[in-house]
């Protein structure tokens, strides 16, 4: 049943449905309301969990690492600098192949300090060995959170569910929080076969030398690649239960014969969708929503881009000195595929919370009149605000 909720409350309720046994998080804008609401649900007796108050994100991640290693279903959430402070532990969690779910309420990273949305935080830990799923709206964030527990417990790979800070976390809109029975039928109790057990002592995270380290990394990579089928299955099974799906690894929306594609990640896809509807006079475009960023769904991407002459990759982070992060990976994936390469232009938009207006859409399409293959820029930069030498 639909109810109108703030995104953060919707996530707190979705987490509650997953029956986590341990929750540890340190508040940081814009993730704070998630933790506050979980805390309230615990106080109100609606969530029975060990809620651990910690003094930092490093500790939050360490607590859930330990809890999950002992066999508990665990949850944490963070943003921005908090994700960076967790970074060391994030690598430990994935390296030890500990199942858990983390919500990243995406926020820019300072300096300069900025509390608003972009995706520099989750992109900074893209190589940490976590699965990363990006959400287009709050319903997807709810559904993906529940799916994430199934994925992580079947793959023994931790899952980061990324939702745009403020844009989703602080938006009040209708969502369906699935019934407890439904979630229970989808998500069986967590049985971690490598759980630490004092009656059967073993160790996790021991030192591994050169004789085995590359093999550990290889098996991690293989597990990530194989997890794609679990991510798709988790979404397909969810659809069977609820009638809703989030788009698997990625999804394509638009006229079959359109030879222009616009690829986007996170909540901006819906603004682009509304803009396309408002501008039917413009060149027809397929909108490609990249939901699963790690593992990177190269084959599905090649399939989605078949027949495209032009591809605009729109992202909300970038790598200074390189350019787009996703755009670079998309180019590599398509170059390795067997189809002809489209012209690829790569734009970063909405850094540090800059609004993404409907009017951006015609500008994106018009830019193709002059953009060369491989072009990158911060699309909504206002150069007149900069000194001449910085432009």
């Amino acid at each position, binding site marked *: 049943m639909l109810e109108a909720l703030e995104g953060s409350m919707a996530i707190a309720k979705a987490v509650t449905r997953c029956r986590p046994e341990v929750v540890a998080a340190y508040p940081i804008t814009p993730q704070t309301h998630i933790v506050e609401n979980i805390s309230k649900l615990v106080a109100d007796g609606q969530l029975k969990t060990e809620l651990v108050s910690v003094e930092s994100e490093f500790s939050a991640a360490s607590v859930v690492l330990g809890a999950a290693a002992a066999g508990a279903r665990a949850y944490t959430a963070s943003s921005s600098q908090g994700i960076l402070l967790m970074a060391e532990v994030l690598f430990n969690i994935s390296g030890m192949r500990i199942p858990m779910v983390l919500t990243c309420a995406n926020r820019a990273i300072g300096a300069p300090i900025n509390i608003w949305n972009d995706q520099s935080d989750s992109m900074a830990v893209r190589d940490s060995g976590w699965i990363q799923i990006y959400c287009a709206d709050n319903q997807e964030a709810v559904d993906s959170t529940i799916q994430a527990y199934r994925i992580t417990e079947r793959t023994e790979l931790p899952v980061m569910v990324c939702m745009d800070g403020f844009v989703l976390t602080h938006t009040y*809109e209708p969502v369906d929080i699935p019934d407890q029975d439904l979630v229970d039928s989808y998500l069986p109790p967590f049985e971690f076969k490598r759980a630490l057990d004092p009656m059967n002592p073993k160790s996790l995270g021991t030192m591994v030398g050169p004789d085995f380290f590359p093999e550990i990394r290889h098996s991690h990579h293989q597990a990530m690649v194989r997890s794609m089928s679990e991510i798709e299955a988790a979404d397909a099974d969810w659809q069977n239960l609820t009638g809703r799906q989030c788009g698997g690894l990625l999804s394509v929306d638009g006229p079959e014969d359109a030879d222009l594609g616009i690829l986007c990640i996170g*909540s901006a896809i819906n603004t682009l969708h509304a803009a396309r509807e408002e501008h039917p006079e413009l060149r027809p475009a397929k909108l490609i929503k990249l939901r699963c960023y790690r593992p990177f769904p190269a084959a599905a991407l090649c399939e989605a881009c078949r027949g495209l002459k032009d591809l605009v990759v729109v992202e909300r982070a970038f790598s200074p000195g390189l350019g787009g992060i996703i755009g670079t990976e998309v180019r590599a994936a398509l170059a390795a595929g067997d189809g002809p390469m489209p012209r690829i232009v790569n734009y970063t938009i909405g850094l540090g919370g800059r*609004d993404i207006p409907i009017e951006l859409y015609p500008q994106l399409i018009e830019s193709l009149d002059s953009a060369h293959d491989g072009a990158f820029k911060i699309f909504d930069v206002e150069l007149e605000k900069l000194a001449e030498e910085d432009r």
Partner: protein
Amino acid sequence: MIEIRIHGRGGQGNVVAAYILAGAAFNAGRYCQAFPAFGAERRGAPVVAFVRIHDSPIRRRSQVRSPDYLIVQDEHLLHDPTLTAGLKPGGGCLVNSNLSSEDLSEMYGVAMTALPAGQMSMAMMGRAVPNVPLLSAFLTLTELMPLDALKKAMGERFKGTVLEKNILLVDEAAQRVPAGAWKEISLARSA
């Protein structure tokens, strides 16, 4: 689609107002979206929040630049002329002010409806939180949805005497503006 922008200052319940208005729309069977555009959050700082109401799911997440309606919780924010600049032609502007609508409109050169919402709230609650009287006046002017939908949304957020007094404020505010005066605008926008 109807788009509303709410201006106020930190501590005036801007975001709460946006959420309650969206909740009222949801209770009336409409799709809704409400979100803030915070500055650095602190008491007294200018704050903006947005509400969209529509008959089908709302996909756009951009800020509202050309609202159909403005709700202004602090009259002094009107000294910034950009505040009303984006208002759609024929759109409505509701302001918390002790001036008459005529004087207020003349002072700022834009047609406005005034409601002494802060004063009403102070008399009823002992606190100048203008948001609930403004929401009631807004729904009375537009007849976008029945006031019961608003009261229900308030019941999801407030309890006890705070809820009771706010419901009295809803009824009081509804008597102080011309019912349906903005109905034509809202009908045209909904279409």
